[in-house]
Each structure stands twice: as structure tokens, then as C-alpha cells.
């Protein structure tokens, strides 16, 4: 079984599925000849030709809009947005159209497309290259949101996303692209969308994270008896796994990069406060980015949840 990083795992998933399913086409800025700015689509244009791996003009709304048209026609387009911070021009296409075509047409036309994009902070890149605005997409009925936390799950989740009958936003934590290496089987395996993973069992506190925060939480909380949940799919998210854990531990800490206010942590906290409040011993704590734009390199570590803040939250809860 090959050992590979997340870039390679995603590339493998795309390549294998393109071999299996000729409805899969890739499009985006620099995805073809250049193989994507992170090399995620490296070699795919060579392998599958310019009709299936399409270098587009610099136009995010047009890219997603074109992908929507392809999906309506019966293909399964995979649009790459170069960085999550450049998806906002396509926001209308995603929310007014991709998320609604099935519903608007009462099921007659469907929109099975995947939008892949690098996401998250910590790569010392310019402004708008380190966003984590996943919560926006979780507030869109008709859109699914998936965030892998490593190579193995990335491949399995992407294969599920590529086969999903509805639009999926697939957020790839940039900081992890080459950080984690794992054994990733060649060939077909899928991980179901909508299911979380217990990344580490524990009994004193439930810690929920996703994407690159998972790696940080696992490291920082090694000395604690924490049950760590890797959410994997944010929308629809796995309420069952979360509630089961929370009922067991009675304590919850949610960790995410995005600004606290209206981040996805809010939805998790609200759901827990709605469904399991009587099992809680203390407050539901969020360790999140502050309500500021992600800063540039020299300040970004002041922004991201760090060991001190994560441990402080857990310690506080353990006092209840």
C-alpha cells in the first residue's frame, strides 16, 4: 500500500474516478498544464486530455456557473477554486443556483458537482489565501460540505463526493497538504458523507474539530483523557456521534479556525444545547479565531487556536 500525502491522495482519487466514470471533468484556473498551484491535478490533463481537464479563464463565478451547466447536462464536473478566499465571487452561483436547481425543477434537473478548494491558515501566504469560511456553505440548504483531515479520509470522502447526486464543497486544509503521510490504498473505497470519526476515544471531555485543527488538537491534548471527534462532513453533520459522545463525557470544547461569531462551532453548540443540555456539566466552550480577518504571516499564530487556548478551555471545563 503506497504511503502518500493529501495532495497525492486527492490526485489518486480523481485519477481513479476519471478512469471509472467518463462523466467526471475537471475545470479551474491552472488545473491543466500546470497541474494546479498545489499540484493536486498534476498529470491529469496529460492522462485525460484537454476536454476533461480544462484550464479556464480567471473567472470564479463563470467557473462554477459553467460547472453547473455541465452538471445539469449530465456530467459530473469538479471545479477547482484556487483558494477558498476566491470563492466569494462565485457565492451567488453556489447559493442561488447550484444549491437550488434540483428543488427549483422539482427534481427534473440535478446538479451533481464538486467544488474543491484549498482552505485554512498557516501557510504564510498573502491575504485571502488562508480563509476558513466553511460556515457560509453550511447555511445553504442543498449544499454538502466536507473537510478531510488527512490523506486516507481525503481519498475516501472525495470518492463519495464525486458520486454524490448533489453539490458538494470539498475543503482541503492547505496546511496539511504535505504535512501528513499515511498509507492510502489504491483502488476503490469510500467513506460515507455525513459520518464523523472518533479520532481518539476518551471519557472526560468531548473535543470536536475538523481539518487542520484536528491535527493540532490531537497533539495538544495528548496528555488529556479527551474524546476527539473529527467531524469530516460539516453539512449534514453527524449529530448522532456528537451527541453520543457528549452524553458520555458531559463536557464539550469545539475548536475551529474561523472567527468565532457564526462560525460552524455555533451550530454545533446550538445543537448540543438543544438536544443534550441536561447531560452537560459546564458551558459549551468554543476555541476559535477572533472576529477579525485572518492576519498575514507575522500575526497569524496570534489568530489561530493554539495550545494555550485549547488547553485552557479543557482545563476550565474539567473544573466542573
Amino acid at each position, binding site marked *: 500500500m503506497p504511503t502518500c500525502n493529501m495532495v497525492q491522495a486527492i490526485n489518486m482519487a480523481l485519477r481513479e474516478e476519471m478512469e471509472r466514470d467518463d462523466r467526471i471533468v475537471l475545470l479551474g484556473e491552472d488545473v491543466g498544464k500546470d497541474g494546479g498551484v498545489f499540484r493536486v491535478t498534476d498529470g491529469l490533463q496529460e492522462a485525460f486530455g484537454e*476536454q476533461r481537464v480544462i484550464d479556464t479563464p480567471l473567472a470564479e*463565478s463563470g467557473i*462554477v456557473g459553467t460547472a453547473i*451547466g455541465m452538471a445539469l447536462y*449530465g456530467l459530473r464536473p469538479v471545479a477547482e477554486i484556487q483558494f477558498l478566499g476566491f470563492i466569494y465571487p462565485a457565492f451567488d452561483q453556489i447559493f442561488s443556483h447550484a444549491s437550488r436547481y434540483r428543488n427549483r425543477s422539482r427534481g427534473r434537473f440535478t446538479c451533481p458537482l464538486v467544488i474543491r478548494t484549498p482552505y485554512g491558515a498557516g501557510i504564510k501566504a498573502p491575504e485571502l489565501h488562508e480563509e476558513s469560511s466553511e460556515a457560509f456553505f453550511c447555511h445553504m440548504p442543498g449544499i454538502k460540505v466536507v473537510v478531510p483531515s488527512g490523506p486516507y479520509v481525503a481519498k475516501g470522502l472525495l470518492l463519495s463526493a464525486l458520486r454524490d447526486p448533489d453539490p458538494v464543497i470539498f475543503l482541503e486544509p492547505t496546511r496539511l497538504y504535505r504535512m501528513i503521510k499515511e498509507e492510502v490504498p489504491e483502488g476503490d473505497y469510500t467513506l460515507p458523507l455525513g459520518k464523523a470519526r472518533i479520532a481518539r476515544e476518551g471519557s472526560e471531555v468531548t473535543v470536536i474539530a475538523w481539518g487542520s485543527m484536528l491535527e493540532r488538537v490531537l497533539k495538544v491534548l495528548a496528555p488529556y483523557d479527551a474524546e476527539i471527534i473529527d467531524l469530516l462532513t460539516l453539512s449534514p453533520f453527524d449529530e448522532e456521534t456528537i451527541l453520543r459522545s457528549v452524553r458520555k463525557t458531559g463536557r464539550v470544547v469545539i475548536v475551529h479556525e474561523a472567527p468565532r461569531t457564526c462560525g460552524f462551532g455555533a451550530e454545533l453548540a446550538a445543537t448540543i444545547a438543544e438536544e443534550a443540555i441536561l447531560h452537560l456539566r459546564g458551558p459549551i466552550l468554543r476555541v476559535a479565531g477572533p472576529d477579525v480577518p485572518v492576519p498575514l504571516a507575522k500575526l497569524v499564530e496570534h489568530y489561530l487556536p493554539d495550545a494555550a487556548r485549547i488547553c485552557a478551555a479543557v482545563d476550565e471545563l474539567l473544573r466542573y
Partner: protein
Amino acid sequence: MIEVMPETIIDTFSVSRLDILDPEGIADESLLPSLSREDSLRLYELLFLSRAFDGRALNLQREGRIGTYPSILGQEAAQVGSAFALKKSDWVFPSFRETGVHITLGYPLELLFRYWAGDERGLLCPDGLNVLPVSVSVGTHIPHAVGAAMAARYRGDQVAAVAYFGDGATSKGDFHEGFNIAGVYRLPVVFICQNNQWAISVPRSRQTASATLAQKAFAYGIEGIQVDGNDVFAVYSATRQALERARGGGGPTFIECFTYRISHHTTADDADRYRSSAEVEEWKQRDPLERLRRFLEKRGYWNKDYQADLEKRTREMIDQAVRDAESAPAPERSEIFRTVFEKCTPRQARDLEVSADADL
């Protein structure tokens, strides 16, 4: 003082316009498309049906039986003429003011009435027709036609995709991004703009400073042409030619149909606040129906008996559609969950149950 530099001219462009049938019903025979008597009458009947449907919709709205409705009065030739050139296999992406297109393509009248009455099921396009749901959001559906065209070409289908939109839509970013992508890949797509001179209260001259809309095609290296949008033959010919170009690999075409919105923007609008009745009266003289009627009369295809019969048939058809629409059972609460995803999320399923309980 502004010095003007002498510069080298490196390229030139020209904008063309196509006119075939004049308001008196006299056609330029050299340009006239070869249509049979049946086809010519069919065109007339579709124009007539479109106008009659429109009138009935306005009445129903006044009686509170449907919601806000956008009239197509004056634009029938642009809609019917272009749609008449389409094949069933082509893909059509309409805006919200395309009743004449729907009618020409055989979209059930009953469904149109239901849609405008606020019943989502009106947008369930029957199988065999590739008419996408209307895009209420102006111009943002243009890239979808481009994507469908790209998919059709990838599939090797001899199919064109067609996007309909108004003059206002030409100001939108998605118009630009869609056109540009279509140009780069020379996709089989036809862009049909009904320049009806107004975007609600904003006149064409305030929408853009370009002298014609057609010339915007140059920015994308694609074909562009202006046609008399009240001339059903000109619209039909230009569209057919563009469709053939598209299906034959010749790339996209932008057709500006120069026409006029005779009515208010919608039933919620009052156009008297912002435009003169003189302008409207002037445009009424260029009526698309009347000019085709004159043409047919001159050819001996039209007479009063025919007209009386047509009116009767049309009325009955519309009456029936209204009856069908109004007798359709109200949509059930579950309808709001049914088609968001292929399968409900757990949360949706719970909300659906709750609402089912509440129904009891």
C-alpha cells in the same frame, strides 16, 4: 490641452443589423426564410397564443388568482421567432420573461399558470423538453448555458444551448464571464438578448454606453448581430443561422433582438412613473403580430374567418389550462423537503416528521 496621438490602426469591426419584414407587412423577399404556408401560419398562431396567454395572465393577476406576473406584450416575435428555430434536442435557459418561448416549445400552459400562481410544481419541465427552470436572478443563468454547451460538445451531441435574457442582464458580471468562456472554447451556444429598451425604470441608454448591445460580442471574439426584434422572420433567420453555426462547430453567437416592453415591468410596477406614453405609442406602431398578419393577408393565408376560428381555439385552450391549473390539488407540506437533496438529511427528515405531525 489634450494632445491626440496619431496611432496605428490594428483592427476594425462592424456591427450589422438584420431587417426582413417591415411594419406594413412587406418583406424583403431576398432575405425571407423559406417557410411553408403551414409554418408561417404556425408562427402567427404561436404569436397569437402568446399574446392571449399574456392577456389572460394579467387578468388573473388582477383578480388575485395568480401572483406578480411579467408581461411579454410587444416581445412576442423575439420569443416565438427564436424558439421556432430550436430543435427539441437543444437546451434552453430562459429568464423570467419568456412565456412566448415556453409556449413555442410546447411547455404546458397549465404549468405556466401554476408557476405564476406560486406553485413550485409549475417548473417541473416535462420529459423530452430541455427547458430549464426560469432564472429569476437576472443574467446569472448565462454561464449555465455555456456549461451545457461544453458538456454537449464533450458528449459529441449535435446540440446547441440557448440562453435568453434582457438588456439589463448585459450589465451583469455573469454575462461577461459566461460570454468570455464561450468565446475561448468556441462553444455551441446562442445568446439571445431581448433588448426591450427598459430594465424596470432604467432605460437602455443608462444601462450601458455602448451604441448597440450587439457590439459587446467583439469583446469576446464571437459573432454578434442586431435584429429587428419585432420582425419574426428576422429573429427566426438569425437564430436559425446561429444555431447552425453552433451545432456545426462555428462557435457562439450573440443576437440582440431590438424590441420593446409595451407593458409595465411586472404587475407590481407602474411604468407611468418613469417613461412617456408617447414612446409606448410609437412602439405600438411596430407591433409584431399585426405586421405578420398583414404579410399573411397579402399572401392570401389569412382572413377573418380564420381569425375568428383561431381566437375560439386559443380561448378554449387557455380556459382549459386555467381550469387545470386551478383544480390541481394544493401542494402538500412535504413538498418543501422533497427535492432539496436526492435524500433528506437527518435534520430535514425530522423537520418533515414534525410537520407531518402538525398536519394531523
